[in-house]
């Protein structure tokens, strides 16, 4: 590694310096720029190109100042402040220069301020007024405005080059923050302008639509198409992935009219992705459920989904609907009833759901979609470390010397977190990508391991064997902090590199190189997502990552660890709150009598002691008519679960199904009663993001129509069922109860969350939260190495089904599309699902780009379009599961991981035929 002590401008050091600005002595941290010091000291210096998140640029030249002993005018945004510096920010020379620069902008700018979308937020206008630009001066100059065509190709924003002042913020945001590089400055002189590659419309470029450029444009050159200035802004949390970006919702007339990233957001620092920026159209969508619905008697649940809603349901009052739900649920014994909670609901609501199941329905049959994503994480990491969550924090990924990103297409699924990865690479960190798909991160990777789907254990064990054989392991860490190393070490014997190469199809040399790079560059962190978990041996995969982290001593320190990236905004919280069949909130076992006693006392009831059924087990029980009634919130198994045909049959067998959602989802159409919930924007609550950070979301608008917050509905159902202890006035009261019963949330309260999120464990009111787990000891005491064996996926390609189907998600859509498919911008950017196929397979099957094809597996068939892409290796095809029109999960294999009961969504054998 380089050892040059270069001065990084803008990076605040620790040494303190003193300088004088306009005669006033100012203290500053070494490394700050003159501009930063001045702004920090309350001395205004106009600037159009400075942005605290971007590298110093020095383009607008408005921030020029005079510094004694320095020649001429210097741009304060690029000049590091030094001890004893004498700075003058408003000398006649400075003012003259600024005035002329501003005049030059003015004569080259369209002056339609009143109709400009930027209007009151326009930095240019503010500075023009600050500098006091006068008409008389402007009239001396030659008017230089050229009329360039607008680029309106993008569904979300407009690029008006006539209002561009070329400050380069958009370009820098695209390169430095989003690491996309869709735009740059093209041409020279007066013709210079912001352009995409080949000066094509932005919609035809590689733009990922994150809108970082739009958010940072100081003028009206990049403006959203649909936004209106809000009457007020409400701080909340993005409702999409598990990164948990902090946002401000702009509200006007009970509508969301704008969204912006919170610059102080701990996880996003102001950034947002395409969904987080533009994906709010669902909130005020006309198809929102606004009243409770009850199935019309005689309309079979099995009826085809294309029946209109009003042919299936009738509208009902809340009283009638709640009464019906309670009456029906009372009919069944506890083992005949199941509850499915939601990773999209708040912690408080998930807490209530499991309380309802356990305390009122007296069953542990409670689960949620974490079963389909990170059940192996919980199962695996608890075995290895004692805690099944991300060990480290999002922010410290940026400082890692090495990142292994395995089974995660981070830029598509956790886009804002991916910024940290590219930052780490830009800071000299090494990135190892392990993925069969050539994901975007491969552009930044030192090593890309393209292993066969389902061979992660072999790949990781192969790497570990190299590390052990070459003595690159952290012996001291293993000796002091871990156990069972010898047994594990022995299990490495099965993984000769010949064997690993044969199984994974990764050349041995690359495995050796990856092992060395990972072991040598410390701190090293492991990031993974569904590519690791959604396998019939998902838990083994997780254990392998934990073994690798312990083997190299990469646990318990900043920028290390095993970091499962959670998919939904509150999937971590739903797990934390005990929406799982075997644990109460805070992963307290239902089988532990002492703990059960604690909850029985708190809830004043008797609780069942045996763990309940998992999600797919409940559906399986329904299929066999053992499960009679199901209360399901905000989940859509009709698209999200494997082998949908089977799911459909199972749901059809139920005697009573309650679905609580904000839209009439594919699953809701099967319900007997549909309860209209409120969206995230319409209720108070907390969400826990992937890094265990509990964050506060706030009601921004009134619930749409007669919909109600989910916590309110659950309480009403419980009370209808005659339960006590469900009379909360506000979610804050629910959090108090959580706080009392859940040690890891013991220090979390709404009051504390006003100052920002808190990362659990946060056991007491004065505990600052825990950014890094297992610092001194593992949660379970010693870290446990687990010996592993290689198990192939349950269904491998054969003559009839010669291709492997692997599924995943698209940047532009979320989960089953319940929300994103209602958003015009996102639908325009990604209107339909496709099956991606390698050029070799495509040509062998006579398939061309855009052809209509049939994809079939042993479980069903899907008609969709083909997309031919080099990103896939021959033998593997890829689909997303967002689209009801081409539901990939018709095809997927419901075979379960024996430990965590996650289905093998990532590997199924299929065939593809041209239609």
């Amino acid at each position, binding site marked *: 590694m*380089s050892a040059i002590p270069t001065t990084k401008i803008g990076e605040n050091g620790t040494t303190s310096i003193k300088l004088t600005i306009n005669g006033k002595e100012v203290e500053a941290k070494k490394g700050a720029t003159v501009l930063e010091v001045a702004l920090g000291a309350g001395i205004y210096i106009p600037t159009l190109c400075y942005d605290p998140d971007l590298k110093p640029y020095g383009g607008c030249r408005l921030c020029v100042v005079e510094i004694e002993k320095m020649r001429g005018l210097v741009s304060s945004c690029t000049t590091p402040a030094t001890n004893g510096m004498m700075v003058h920010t408003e000398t006649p020379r400075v003012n003259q220069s600024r005035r002329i620069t501003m005049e030059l902008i003015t004569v080259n700018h369209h002056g339609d301020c009143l109709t400009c979308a930027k209007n009151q937020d326009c930095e240019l206008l503010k500075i023009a007024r600050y500098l006091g630009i006068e008409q008389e001066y402007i009239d001396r*100059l030659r008017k230089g405005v050229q009329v360039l065509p607008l680029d309106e190709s993008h569904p979300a924003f407009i690029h008006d080059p006539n209002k561009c002042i070329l400050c380069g913020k958009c370009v820098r945001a695209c390169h430095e923050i989003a690491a996309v590089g869709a735009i740059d400055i093209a041409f020279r002189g007066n013709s210079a302008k912001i352009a995409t590659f080949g000066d094509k419309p932005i919609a035809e470029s590689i733009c990922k639509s994150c809108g970082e450029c739009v958010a940072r444009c100081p003028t009206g050159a990049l403006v959203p198409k649909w936004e209106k200035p809000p009457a007020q802004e409400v701080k909340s949390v993005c409702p999409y992935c598990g990164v948990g970006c902090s946002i401000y919702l702009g509200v006007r007339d009970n509508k969301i009219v704008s969204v912006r990233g919170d610059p102080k957001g701990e996880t996003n620092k102001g950034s947002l992705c395409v969904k987080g920026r533009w994906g709010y159209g669902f909130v005020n969508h006309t198809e929102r459920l606004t009243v409770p619905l009850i199935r019309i008697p005689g309309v079979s649940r099995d009826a085809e989904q294309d029946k209109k809603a009003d042919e299936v349901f009738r509208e009902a009052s809340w009283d009638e609907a709640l009464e019906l739900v309670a009456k029906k649920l009372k009919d069944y014994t506890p083992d005949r009833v199941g509850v499915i909670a939601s990773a999209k609901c708040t912690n408080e609501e998930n807490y209530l759901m499991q309380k309802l199941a356990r305390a009122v329905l007296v069953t542990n049959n409670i689960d949620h979609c974490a079963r389909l994503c990170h059940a192996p994480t919980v199962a695996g990491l608890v075995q290895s470390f004692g805690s099944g969550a991300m060990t480290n924090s999002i922010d410290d990924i940026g400082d890692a010397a090495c990142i292994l990103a395995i089974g995660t297409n981070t830029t598509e699924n956790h886009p804002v977190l991916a910024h940290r990865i590219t930052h780490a690479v830009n800071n000299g960190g090494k990135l190892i990508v392990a993925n069969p798909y050539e994901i975007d991160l491969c552009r930044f990777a030192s090593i890309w391991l393209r292993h066969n789907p389902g061979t992660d254990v072999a790949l990781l064990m192969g790497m570990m064997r190299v590390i052990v054989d070459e003595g690159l392991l952290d012996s001291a860490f293993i000796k002091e902090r871990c156990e069972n190393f010898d047994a594990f070490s022995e299990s490495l014997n099965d993984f000769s590199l010949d064997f690993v190469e044969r199984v994974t199809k990764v050349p041995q040399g690359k495995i050796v190189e990856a092992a060395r790079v990972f072991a040598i560059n410390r701190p090293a962190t492991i990031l993974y997502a569904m590519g690791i978990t959604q396998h019939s041996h998902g838990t083994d995969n997780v254990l392998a990552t934990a073994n690798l982290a312990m083997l190299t001593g990469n646990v318990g320190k900043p920028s290390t660890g095993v970091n499962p990236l959670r998919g939904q905004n509150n999937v971590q919280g739903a797990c934390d709150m005990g929406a799982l069949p075997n644990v109460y909130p805070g992963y307290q076992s239902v089988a532990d009598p002492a703990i059960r006693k604690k909850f029985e006392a708190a809830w004043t009831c008797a609780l069942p002691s045996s763990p309940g059924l998992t999600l797919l087990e409940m559906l399986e029980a329904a299929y066999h008519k053992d499960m009679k009634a199901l209360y399901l919130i905000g989940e859509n198994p009709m698209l999200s679960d494997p082998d949908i045909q089977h799911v459909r049959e199972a749901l059809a067998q139920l005697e009573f199904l309650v679905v609580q959602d904000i839209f009439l989802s594919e699953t809701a159409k099967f319900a007997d009663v549909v309860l209209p919930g409120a969206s995230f924007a319409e209720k108070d609550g907390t969400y826990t993001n992937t890094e265990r950070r509990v964050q506060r979301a706030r009601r921004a608008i009134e619930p749409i129509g007669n919909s109600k917050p989910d916590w309110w509905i659950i309480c009403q159902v419980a009370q209808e069922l005659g339960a006590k202890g469900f009379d909360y006035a506000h979610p804050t009261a629910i959090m108090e109860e959580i706080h009392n019963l859940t040690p890891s949330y013991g220090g979390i309260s709404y009051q504390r969350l006003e100052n920002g999120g808190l990362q659990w464990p946060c056991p007491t009111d004065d505990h600052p939260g825990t950014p890094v787990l297992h610092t001194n000891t593992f949660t379970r005491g010693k870290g446990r190495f687990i010996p592993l064996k290689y198990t192939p996926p349950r269904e491998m390609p054969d003559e009839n089904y010669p291709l492997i189907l692997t599924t995943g998600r698209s940047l532009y859509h979320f989960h089953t599309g319940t929300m994103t498919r209602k958003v015009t911008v996102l639908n325009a950017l990604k209107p339909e699902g496709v099956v991606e196929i390698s050029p070799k397979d495509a040509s062998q099957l006579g398939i061309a780009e855009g052809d209509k094809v049939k994809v079939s597996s042993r479980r069903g068939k899907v008609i969709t379009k083909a997309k031919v892409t080099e990103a896939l290796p021959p033998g593997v095809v890829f689909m997303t599961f967002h689209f009801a029109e081409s539901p990939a999960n018709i095809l997927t294999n419901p075979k379960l991981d024996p430990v965590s009961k996650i289905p093998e969504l990532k590997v199924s054998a299929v065939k593809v035929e041209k239609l």
Partner: protein
Amino acid sequence: MSFEEIKEQAILQWKTMQQSENIRILIGMGTCGRAAGAEDILDVLNQELDKQNIQADILPVGCIGLCYAEPLIEVIKPGKPSVFYGNLTPELMSEIIVDYLIADNPRSDLALGTRGEGTLDGIPKLFDLPVLKPQVRISLRNCGNIDPESINHYIANGGYEGLAKALRMKPQEVIDEVKKSGLRGRGGAGFTTGVKWQFCHDALGDIKYVICNADEGDPGAFMDRALLEGDPHVVLEGILIGAYAIGAPEGYIYIRAEYPLAIQRLRIAIKQMEEYGLIGDDIMGSGFKFHIKIKEGAGAFVCGEETAMMASIEGRRGMPRSRPPFPAQSGLWGKPTNINNVETWSNVSAILAKGADWYAGYGTEKSKGTKNFSLAGKVVRTGLIEVPMGISLREIVYEIGGGIPEGKCLKAVQTGGPSGGFIPESLVDLPVDYESLTQAGSIMGSGGMVVIDEDTCMVDMTKFFLTFTQAESCGKCIPCRWGTKQMLDILVDITEGRGRPGDVELLQELAESVKSSSLCGLGQTAPNPVLTSIRYFRDEYEEHIVEKRCSAMQCQALISYYILPDKCQGCMICARSCPVQAIEGGKRMVHVIDQDKCIKCGICLDGCPPKFSAVVKVSGTKPSDIPERPVPVVAKS
């Protein structure tokens, strides 16, 4: 093979060639020669030699600097001084072969001069000619003398001696030697080369880079191209010495893609160096390791600026960034980097081989050594020259350049390319050194030198340079991007008769602002032509703005053509040749130019028979008695 053995072999080869009984003909095959038709001359030469059955060795060489005389050959008959012939045509080439090679008549009427021992009647010594006599050739010492594609030629003429000597010294001693020589950056900024090397040498870094700036972009400048085409090894040797002194194992030559011949010759040279172990992992057995890559630039002028150049090498858009950090601390890929231009590097080997004191013996107190210039414009002898610092502009223009063609008057000399300034005729005795030129409002620049005569309109000329800098501004800084545009728009207005009172002051205000608030050298110097033309030729601005007159008759919008009624004989020649039918009149009628239709092409003026001289070109005034409609010619009484 050791370097000593390589050298012996090279000298042997050179001597064998020198002592050969064959006739040798050197032909200037640089881009300048080729542009003037050297390829045709070569064809004729080959054909004639074949036809006459003459055994001769033909050696393509680089530019010797006498561009005005291209195509140029040097004919060497054994035992005689060589003879230079210039301005060749295929016919002259044939004549020379027949007359000199066969009939032994050296054709003193065609010969430019001789070189070598002995004399030939009626032909002066080439280096005694006024064009060459004031010149001192250090950087250009081999140009036109050796085959640029032969490393042996270079070595036989003392090549790589400087490197060999440097490798026997400590890096710090090399730096000290270069410091002592007083060599300053020949790219134009004039920073002391040794000090620059010292910064990079002292910077901490696991790897360092040296870069050769061959992105010569000034309009009319061709010093670096000619040097790289004529003697690539002299530059490479300098780079190697610098890399050794600084401790850089890798280097880049950033050269514009428009210089294909120079690139080709560099590639050949590098390959030859590899074969001789002069580049690689153990250079001359000293353990010094150095590799070099050629990066072709796409032709943006701003990429000649150090930080923009590094961005371009890194694969980004070539745009300058602020300093600090300076390249010596954080340059290419964040590593310490030293950038010098072609000419600076080309001086290093001689400094090492002959010593700093020898080099410092040329030039002035603060500007040591020599400087290359592309002498162009309104001067009799254009070409590539190398002169000792401190020489006066007068010597350059009048002795080397032979004065102004057609006996016209010198108006100004423009130095420093588009970022330079105009030095008026009144300062013609100004010594050419960094400080004097700066004081006069111009800059040394990389070596463009344009001579301007009385027929040039200074406002128009300023507009020309601004058009260039405006088009080449990278667009990053507002003052540069729109300030140059604003100045250009005003200059266009002035030259087209739309100048307003106050424009000169406005130009000055803008120019000062662009100069002081731009980030990089391009913006900081782009206003120089405006400022110096106003400083020395303000009256020309005033006449354009106030009188709508261009006394140099260059600004088309301000000139008019009229037919004088007392001279016109109604011959109809002008009317017939007018491309836009702007001239009315009939036989024996006084012709009249319709001023609205006239496009001011001047064909009528050129076509009017001299005995009549009835058409006049004027600016700002209208001759009296010009009729509105054609009238009959009044017969002379």
